[in-house]
């Protein structure tokens, strides 16, 4: 059974499968990346690996000035990126029946679907598309 980490970006709730997550940590000291786009916060040292930290809220155009307290770190190598989020909530079991039916217009290429967790509307993040997009963009 799949487990999903529910986290918050500003006032929006997002979900991410924990199988894609290496670790969750407090926001560390970041290194400055020259000529980086505004959604790239900087680089962090994760157990000897330098990983770029993405300002997810800014990248998804949710909110421009949100606080970033935690980072969700992907496994180094393949994804090799950390997501800056406002707050992590908890890890829940994912029930596919609880997905909300929705029209195509409400969907985004980074959002797979909307999941209802105990009344919270959680945007399930399509992390593969996100990584692909990042990789295709010129950093």
């Amino acid at each position: 059974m799949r487990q999903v980490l529910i986290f918050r970006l500003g006032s929006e709730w997002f979900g991410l499968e924990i199988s894609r997550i290496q670790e969750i940590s407090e926001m560390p000291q970041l290194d400055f990346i020259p000529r980086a786009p505004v959604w790239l916060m900087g680089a962090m040292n994760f157990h000897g690996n330098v990983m770029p930290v993405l300002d997810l809220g800014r990248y998804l155009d949710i909110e421009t000035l949100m606080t970033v307290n935690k980072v969700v770190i992907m496994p180094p190598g393949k994804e090799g990126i950390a997501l800056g989020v406002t707050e992590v909530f908890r890890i829940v079991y994912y029930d596919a029946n609880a997905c909300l039916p929705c029209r195509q217009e409400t969907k985004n290429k980074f959002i797979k679907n909307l999941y209802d967790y105990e009344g919270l509307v959680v945007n399930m993040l399509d992390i593969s598309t996100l990584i692909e997009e990042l990789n295709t963009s010129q950093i």
Partner: protein
Amino acid sequence: MRVEISYKFTMGFILVVASVVGFNLLVPLLGLEAYWWHQVFSVGSALLVGLILGSLFSRVFTNNIRVLREAAERISSGDLSRSVRLRDTVFPDETYDLALSLNKVNNNLRELVGAVRVSSGQVADSAQGLSATAQEMTASSHELSNTVEQISRGAESQAETVETTSRLIKEMEVSTELVVAAAGKVLEAVDLTVSTAQQGGETARRTMEGMKQILLDVEQSGEQVVSFGGQLQKISKIVDVINSVAQKTNLLALNATIEAARAGEYGRGFAVVAEEIRKLADSTADSAGEITQLIGNVQGDGLSVEKSLRASIEEMDKGKKAIDLTSTAFSEIIDTAVNAQSKAFSITELSNKQLEGAHYLVGAIDDISQVVSDNAAATEEGSAATEQQSASMEEMAHSAQDLARYAESLIDKVKLFQLENSESSD
């Protein structure tokens, strides 16, 4: 040689008888025949002799008598200038005596008239002087009378004034008694004020002490509240630490769950433990949040308590100042009241003295009134006496005038007598 008239008559009679006898003797010598012729002749001769003698004698006598009568008439008409002079004769008789007597009378009268004239002149002068003096005295006594009347009127008005003064002084006495009573009441009131003000000052002092004690307590409470706030902050820091520990625990639990999921079937138990730890961390965070909430509430309460304490302290400072002012005011009141007390006391004393003085004054005024009324009576008597005197003086003046008139009429009367002096002067 003095011969009395009777002797002269006797001698004449003898001569006539002698001539009768003689002629009787001589006739026969003449040669007449007839007897009766003899008789006629002798009687005729004797008659002739008697006629001659008688006419001579009676002429002398009548002349003398006429001279005497004229002299007497002259005297009676007042002419005393001349003395009687009869023709010198060999045989003076009683007519000469009479002439002498008349001369004596004349002389005596002349002296008398002279003396009377002089005296009456003097009397007239004196009477006139007396009259003038009496008139002057009358005038003076009129003036005196007027003056005495003025004095009398003055004495009456003085008596009235004294009566008014007496009434006023009695009223003043009554007023002074009222003042004394009022001053006594003022003294009582001031005594009461002093005691009340002293009580008030004492109360203010006690209130001040109580206030200071309360202020100390409140300041202590304030300090306690402040220190309580500090301890709350410490608790808050501890809770912050607990909170961050809970968050870290939560994060660790989340990572443990991720690790357990990665471990697959083997990590299932670990995932349960991680979930339990996460729940613990959650409840710890909730409790910490509640504690923070409580601390916030308590801090808010403490702040409001502190604020109200500060306000209380300010109010108390104000109250302290007010009480200080009150205390000062009370001491000033006491000072003023003590001042007023001494003044009221001196007012009482002074008014008592004034009252005594007023009593004396009333007595003195009564005496003065008595004296003034006596004076008025005496003045009236004096006025009456003066008027009487004036009347007497007028009478006297009248009498003097009468006297002068009498003297003048006497002089007029006496002027009828012509004296030698006046004749010689004529």
